[in-house]
């Protein structure tokens, strides 16, 4: 049994944290972090401003090995970096190129692919999208139906992808496609890189329940894709897809998001009134906050245990799934209590307040506007990236021997 556990960060880690924090203070435009804080709609340029700053600093590819232009950070440093960018209300790093495709190319790509695509990812020249889910292939991703037929020098691609996040900004998309229609589901899949401006590619917006446009359908009609755009071997794409899905999931619990939501919740509960007194003085409501904080406290240590194991080279297995489940539930609970704390103030919904430069008087306190919308929007996190049900299947299958 370990008796000398140390929950403190080392001095080196703390120095690193300060370096990240100072850099963010210096380079992140105030107007941009304000937009993020107010949940305002971010433009393509907003994402790019932050990502270009990261590129200039050499921090964009924080998951990559040094030889490819990455940081070479260990898991604890990556964790600290992620925590600080969320704390600073920076826009999120669009993950599809740098966090998803990059590692796959580094592991499985040809030299030509690495030499061409990796620098373009590092310089933000290409905006990538992810072409995984289809209308008929969600949890059961292997049942996908988009086909790529071998036509000699090219593949002819037909089908439809869906839930393509920020696909309307994308220049390129990496897709899972069927190259062998007769093989068992997981065996006939290939990993293909497609230019969005190829004739036959069409992006259609999906409007979500909060009235926003973030995800899309991407349609492929007789799209010609050069043969050299396949990653790895034909019909072995499933291996690469799984590699991508399990790659670096230490941030999956979203601890820093929940921490900042918890602070926000406490602030609002001090300002909201119940019978004329601050809501936080209500013993039942404050107990709910306390229990949420306890869950979060435990989860943070759970997360750090996994991070620290990863730093020693142990690949996280089922911990990723467990952290995803708990992380999404805790984060959703924060949005629920925030909504509850507002009472009737959660009702008004002014879509125009999420536009840049909106400076009218809000209805009610200014913090109230995004809360209900956030609650509904955050229902997605227990659905995407492998729903919580799928995560439970993974854990049960991997660890019970049943």
């Amino acid at each position: 049994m370990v008796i000398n556990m140390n929950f403190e960060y080392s001095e080196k880690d703390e120095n690193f944290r300060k370096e990240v924090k100072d850099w963010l203070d210096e380079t992140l435009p105030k107007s941009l972090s304000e937009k993020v804080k107010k949940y305002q709609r971010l433009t393509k340029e907003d994402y790019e401003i932050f990502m270009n700053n990261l590129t200039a600093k050499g921090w964009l590819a924080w998951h990559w090995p040094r030889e490819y232009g990455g940081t070479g950070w260990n898991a604890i440093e990556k964790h600290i970096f992620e925590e600080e960018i969320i704390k600073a209300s920076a826009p999120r790093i669009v993950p599809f190129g740098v966090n998803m495709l990059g590692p796959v190319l580094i592991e499985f790509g040809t030299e030509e692919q690495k030499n061409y695509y990796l620098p373009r990812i590092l310089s933000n020249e290409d905006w990538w999208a992810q072409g995984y889910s289809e209308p008929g292939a969600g949890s059961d991703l292997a049942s996908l139906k988009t086909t790529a037929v071998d036509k000699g020098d090219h593949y002819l691609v037909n089908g439809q992808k869906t839930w393509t996040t920020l696909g309307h900004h994308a220049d390129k998309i990496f897709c899972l496609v069927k190259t062998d229609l007769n093989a068992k589901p997981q065996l006939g899949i290939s990993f293909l890189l497609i230019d969005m401006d190829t004739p036959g590619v069409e992006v259609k917006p999906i409007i979500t329940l909060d009235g926003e446009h973030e995800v899309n359908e991407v349609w492929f009609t007789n799209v010609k894709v050069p043969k050299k755009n396949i990653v790895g071997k034909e019909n072995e794409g499933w291996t690469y897809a799984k590699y991508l899905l399990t790659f670096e999931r230490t941030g999956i619990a979203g601890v820093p998001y929940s921490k900042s939501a918890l602070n926000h919740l406490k602030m609002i509960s001090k300002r909201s009134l119940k019978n004329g007194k601050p809501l936080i003085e209500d013993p039942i409501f404050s107990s709910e906050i306390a229990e949420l904080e306890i869950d979060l406290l435990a989860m943070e240590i759970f997360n750090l245990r996994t991070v620290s194991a990863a730093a020693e080279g142990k690949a996280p297995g089922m911990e990723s799934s467990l952290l995803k489940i708990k992380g999404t539930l805790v984060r959703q609970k924060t949005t629920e209590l925030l909504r509850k704390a507002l009472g009737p103030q959660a009702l008004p919904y002014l879509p125009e307040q999420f536009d840049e430069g909106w400076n009218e008087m809000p209805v009610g306190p200014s913090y109230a506007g995004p809360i209900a919308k956030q609650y509904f929007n955050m229902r997605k996190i227990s659905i995407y990236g492998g729903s919580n049900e799928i995560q439970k299947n993974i854990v049960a299958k991997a660890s019970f021997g049943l």
Partner: protein
Amino acid sequence: MDFTLSEERKMLQETVGKFFNSNYKNIDKRSENVNLPEGYSKEFWKESSDLGVISALVSPKFGGLGGSGEDISIIFELIGKSLCVEPFLSSAVLSSTVLSSISNPRNDLITEIIEGNLLISFAHCEMNNRYEDHYIETNAYLKNDEWNINGTKSFVMNGDDASKIIVSARINGDVNDRDGIGLFLVDNDQTLKRPYNTIDGYRSTELTFRDLKGELLAKDENALKCIIKANSAGALALSAEALGIMQICFDLTLDYLKTRKQFGKSIGAFQSIQHRMVDMMLEIEQVKSAVMLASSTFEIDDLTRDKNISAAKNLVGRVGKLIAEETIQLHGGIAMTWEYSAAHYAKRLIMIDHLMGDSDYHRDRFKLLSNF
């Protein structure tokens, strides 16, 4: 004991159900109504009046043809099933309850509401009032025999289109006193309005009064009694509405589980999913039972009425969250989209817990009324 509806009420349920269905065929049709300048369809409202839907919410003593707890529940369960946005709650339940509960009931105004000619909104909520019946900052003072009202009312349903407003205001005492409250009738053309839509698609308004002249309808004990009764009637109506929504959510989800295939079979074939559907079914039966109890005791003494309504509304808040969240989760991404109706039902179900007292408020009131 008899838990079945009378023949008359079955007919009412059937007629009104058909009428709502034909006018609220799908979510696009609803969005059309939401996007009208008034936030609802005046045409549909008038037709509702012609068909007797508004009248079914008012007692024969005041010119209506219904108005019992059961009538309110029947109509609002149907409103929930169609996600209808017309001013049934604001004008036909809240305002008509006040107008019929004051010492000198205003049958003249109630008749006009029933006929669909007059919209009256009840302005009681305020930014700092968290569902309470008596926490009121808006004030009224008497000058030259005229009442003047000052203050801002929040979350006034259909407060932009209503011609008249019933306002609760403090005549004397502290903001949180139970005594010293007055209810006033004011013309809405002199108020300052800030209309907006709520996240679930209903029209609400901030109304500001500056030395606005008002007619006193009730004061002190009678005024508070009217506010409590109106809020209770509203909570009952919303509980029944939520029940209707829950049933639709359940049906949509079950349909989807049968048709959506993953891993070579319908996702409903998985036992873990079936168990979750059973949990939902069970809780909906609980809500149905609580709403029936609250409806049947609506005309009994105030204490029984309020206690049972609080029980129903508390349960609706708790179960509503379960049903809304499970409906989305069991569907997956599709229920996150605007074009699929389940998202809109889920939104309304959640936001019902932000109107006329949430589950915490009604749990506290239940404890109070039960002498815990």
